């Protein structure tokens, strides 16, 4: 029941609200206490107090008090509203929505509650609910344009384009005075309406509408692009040609314009000469345009290619453009182009080398130097790799220009490809030392250190460029700035070093960054309406819908899943059983971890002293301290498969076509004995790449598991499996199947590894020991690479094989430069 207060206390209560809004929490708290002294069960005051202590960081206490407040006064909209806000703060959006709805029932006219509810609904993509809320908000304040636009956006996001357009038109019709030409909100709103007309597929009407607004619209580029698009759709070819030419005059570096121009000109794909003529025309017009010069190389061939490539290469190498190879390497998938480019670069180099008459430029990176750089990269590229030659050219380059970062950096990269991560790390650090002010080369050096498992050094290196005003050191800045590459690389290095806790910590950090990114959109639901930038907002909402399909997420998530699987299987290095690793046992590992922490702390202190400036943004005092900085709690989980599933579900939802995701899904679900789900992953993997070695393993493992488990599964599950498992007949002789696979892929070491691994499962004559022997024996197989050997090494390590030491020794003899075998 609403509890009346005396006049004095009523004014105190208003003060509490004011204090809260002004973020004067201590004062607010004092005033609230004063009320509660006389009215200990006053719900609204308790609720406000809860809200304040929540802001002060005592979330748990706040939540308990919020609940008590609600118990004290179930009929108070304030109590329900606060309850919703507390849930919202905990990111439990479903419960928050429920609480807001209860509050709104008690106080249907509260704009504030309605707003809070609406923004949560759109955040949760409850579009029907959002439409309802926006309709109510529009009815309450129909004079504000924002409310009309917002309702249109709600319909648009819900997929109802007609309704969205109707709402926008209704507003336009209600306006008596025509909006000013500089009214940005109007300019954007009409463009938004235009895209909605086009999205309905009615291009004729979209074009007419666009022409009616084009004159005054402030977004000139959008007008030009949409007009060109509509004209094309309407097959008004001549006009469309002109429209695309106008766009190219504006920006000659946008390949899309060329493609669309050529398409609308109806030049047949095989008429490469006519196509090239278009590009040539723009290359002439814009001597500095790279696109016009380079793009024809994609579609011309034979002598025309050779000639064009020669011209391009000469121009670029004369100028000393470092990205010449990067601009051309995609052509290497065509072997004739690959050979032509290699030959042309040699030709150019030879000509320059003996061209004594020409005056040497000051820039050692032009002409001959540029050719050396190109050739070094050419021989380092996986499609044209010859690391000895690559090294030859890069060495010449370094002799010519010992201070040049690019040559030194390429040298490190070449060495990396030999598997010598140690030397690669050293050489990249040399490159870094050639230009200490450049963060790009600093980043590269740090990355190479991490690849070589030098995690402390890597952090120290990135720390040279981070803002180190936090006592927590460089890592803190990297966290604040959401530096995903570092978290991922460091996590992977920690896995290799056996530091399970730190590795999990890094992968979880990446996971949380994606949570933050999703949460980030919240404020824009209202901000964008105020700013009036509707199209950009809709674009953002649609991107956020699939934000976790980013490779940044996949890579960290796959790393985490793999690690959790190893934890479940008892294969992680950290348990100290593995005697192979050099700093092998648990005690030494602990010592190393301690040392790392100390180094981190010291680096932090040093950095803090070095920086005399206060950070521009005030340090957030209320920021919660991390109670598990080393991930020890994460590593102590007793349910690694449950944790793995948390990472996995997003992988399978957002990146179902990623083979690695499906393979990981199978591994998790098979261990959890969720056979229908495991089968789903297997079938998806088969659809992506049926000949992949791991897919073969999974096929065998699935059938093998089913044979022993089928009887114990519920009838429904049995049914699904029977109808969905179609890869091989249920009666297949797996030993035979495995042998056939081996024979079919003879000569491929990765396939051989898979088949041999499966022998232990399907061949009665084979046991684990003999399988391990055969795996180790692959070292003598023809075509075996050091990467294959690394795969075998990690299998042997995982099963703590007796073969391990011997294998490593032999691998080291075969590839003395590879750090992993040293």
């Amino acid at each position, binding site marked *: 029941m609403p509890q009346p207060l005396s006049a004095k206390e009523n004014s105190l209560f208003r003060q509490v609200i004011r204090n809260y809004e002004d973020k004067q929490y201590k004062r607010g708290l004092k005033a609230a206490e004063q009320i509660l002294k006389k009215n200990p069960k006053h719900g609204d005051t308790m609720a406000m107090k809860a809200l304040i202590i929540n802001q002060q960081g005592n979330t748990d206490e706040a939540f308990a008090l919020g609940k008590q407040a609600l118990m004290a006064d179930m009929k108070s909209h304030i109590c329900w509203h606060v309850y919703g806000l507390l849930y919202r703060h905990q990111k439990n959006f479903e419960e928050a929505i429920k609480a807001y709805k209860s509050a709104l029932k008690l106080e249907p006219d509260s704009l504030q509650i309605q707003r809070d509810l609406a923004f949560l609904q759109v955040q949760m993509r409850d579009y029907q609910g959002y439409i309802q809320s926006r309709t109510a908000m529009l009815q309450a304040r129909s004079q504000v344009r924002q409310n009309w636009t917002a309702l249109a956006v709600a319909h648009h996001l819900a997929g109802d384009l007609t309704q969205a357009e109707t709402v926008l038109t209704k507003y336009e019709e209600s306006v008596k005075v025509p909006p*000013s*030409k*500089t009214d*940005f909100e109007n300019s954007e709103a009409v463009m938004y309406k235009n895209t909605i007309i086009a999205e309905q597929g009615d291009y004729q009407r979209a074009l007419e509408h666009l022409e009616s607004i*084009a004159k005054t619209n402030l977004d*000139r*580029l959008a007008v030009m692009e949409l*007009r060109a698009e509509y004209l094309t759709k309407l097959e008004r070819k001549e006009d469309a040609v*002109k429209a695309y*030419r*106008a766009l190219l005059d*504006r*920006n*000659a*570096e*946008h*390949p899309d314009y060329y493609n669309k121009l050529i398409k609308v000109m109806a030049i047949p794909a095989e008429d490469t000469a006519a196509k090239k003529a278009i590009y040539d025309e723009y290359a002439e017009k814009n001597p*500095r*345009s790279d696109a016009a010069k*380079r793009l024809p190389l994609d579609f011309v061939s034979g002598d025309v290619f050779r000639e064009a490539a020669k011209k391009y290469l000469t121009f670029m190498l004369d*100028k000393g*453009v*470092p*990205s010449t190879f990067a601009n*051309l*390497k*995609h052509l290497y*998938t065509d072997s004739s182009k690959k050979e032509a480019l290699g030959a042309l670069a040699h030709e150019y180099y030879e000509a320059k080398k003996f061209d004594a008459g020409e005056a040497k430029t000051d820039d050692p990176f032009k002409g001959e130097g540029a050719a050396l750089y190109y050739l070094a990269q050419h021989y380092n590229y996986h499609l044209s790799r010859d690391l000895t030659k690559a090294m030859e050219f890069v060495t010449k380059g370094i002799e010519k220009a010992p201070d040049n970062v690019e040559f030194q950096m390429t040298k490190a990269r070449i060495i990396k490809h030999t598997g010598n991560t140690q030397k690669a790390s050293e050489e990249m650090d040399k490159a870094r030392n050639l230009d200490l*002010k450049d*963060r*790009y*080369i600093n*980043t590269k050096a740090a990355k190479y250190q991490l690849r070589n498992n030098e995690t402390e050094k890597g952090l120290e290196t990135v720390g040279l*460029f981070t*803002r180190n*005003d936090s006592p927590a050191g460089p890592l803190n800045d990297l966290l604040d*700035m959401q*530096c*995903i590459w570092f978290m991922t690389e460091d996590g992977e290095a920690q896995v290799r070093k056996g530091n399970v806790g730190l590795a999990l910590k890094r992968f979880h950090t990446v996971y949380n960054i994606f949570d933050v*990114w999703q949460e*980030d*959109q919240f*404020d*824009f639901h209202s901000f964008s309406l105020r*700013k009036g930038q509707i*199209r*950009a*907002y809709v674009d*953002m909402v649609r*991107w*956020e819908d699939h934000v976790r*399909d980013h*490779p*940044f997420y*996949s890579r960290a998530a796959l790393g985490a899943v793999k690690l959790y699987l190893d934890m479940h299987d008892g294969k992680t290095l950290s348990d100290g059983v593995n005697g192979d690793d050099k700093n092998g046992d648990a005690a030494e590992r602990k010592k190393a971890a301690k040392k790392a922490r100390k180094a981190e702390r010291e680096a932090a202190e040093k950095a803090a002293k070095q920086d*005399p*400036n206060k*950070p*521009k943004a005030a340090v957030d005092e209320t920021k919660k301290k991390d109670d598990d900085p080393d991930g020890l709690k994460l590593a102590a989980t007793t349910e690694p498969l449950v944790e793995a599933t948390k990472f996995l579900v997003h992988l399978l939802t957002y990146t179902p076509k*990623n083979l690695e995701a499906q393979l990981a899904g199978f591994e998790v679900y098979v261990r959890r004995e969720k056979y229908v789900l495991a089968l789903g992953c297997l079938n998806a993997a088969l659809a992506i790449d049926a000949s992949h070695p791991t897919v073969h393993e999974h096929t065998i493992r699935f059938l093998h598991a089913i044979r022993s488990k089928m009887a114990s599964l519920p009838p429904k599950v049995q049914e699904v499996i029977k109808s969905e498992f179609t890869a091989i007949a249920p009666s297949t002789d797996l030993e035979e199947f495995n042998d056939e696979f081996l024979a079919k892929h003879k000569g491929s070491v990765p396939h051989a590894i898979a088949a041999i691994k499966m022998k232990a499962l399907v061949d009665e004559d084979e046991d684990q020991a003999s399988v391990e022997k055969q795996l180790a024996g692959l070292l003598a197989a023809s075509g075996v690479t050091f990467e294959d050997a690394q795969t075998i090494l990690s299998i042997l390590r995982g099963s703590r094989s007796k073969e391990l030491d011997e294998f490593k020794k032999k691998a080291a003899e075969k590839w003395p430069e590879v750090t992993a075998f040293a």
Partner: protein
Amino acid sequence: MDIRLLRSSDLPLIQHANLENLPENYFMKYYLYHALSWPQLSYVAVDVSRPKKTPYDYPKIVGYVLAKMEEEPTDGIQHGHITSLSVMRTHRKLGIAEKLMRQSQLAMVETFGAQYVSLHVRVSNKAAIHLYSKTLGFDREKIEEKYYADGEDAHCMKLDLSSIKEQVAAFAGGDDSDEASEAEDEGDPVGDVGKAGDEGKQMPSRPKETKRKVKVGRPLGVAGLVEKDESKHP
């Protein structure tokens, strides 16, 4: 290479490029703030020829310009500001930074009626200062002491956008191309917009007064101040 408008989905790799290349970094929300407040002003350079490794690869960003309008200009003049500009070391000498900047500046004038654009640069960053002053024509306005977190000073630089304004006006009006060519600064792509007399006519024809329209093409509220203060700024 592809120079195009920034999209929200580019942001993770823009943030990545920024972290790889520059000491001034920002969290995602700050990038979103730019992308959602002035979506016309920020551009990216994309390596389109990079082979895809998974079906979910995003276009690799090798350069970007993150730009904004000054929300409450202290001098009362509508102007743009470059928050961050970066080109990968591996993709230098292709004129990318310049091309990005020109597209951004054009939009600043067209959409927001910017009179000039400003930026900060580390006093030690010789290469960038060279680009801004020699290639793009920025003037050194003043030094802001200890602007950066590590204590380094910044040059505050400015570029007057009136030449672009003339081109835009000429283009909008479908004017004689000769007049526009005079305003051209370096015969770069942006300059060509002015020359695009023939193509310009293909745009919906505009009445003569559109020339004036561009001048007032800015959000409400500061229009009155702009004309008066214009002379003070080069």
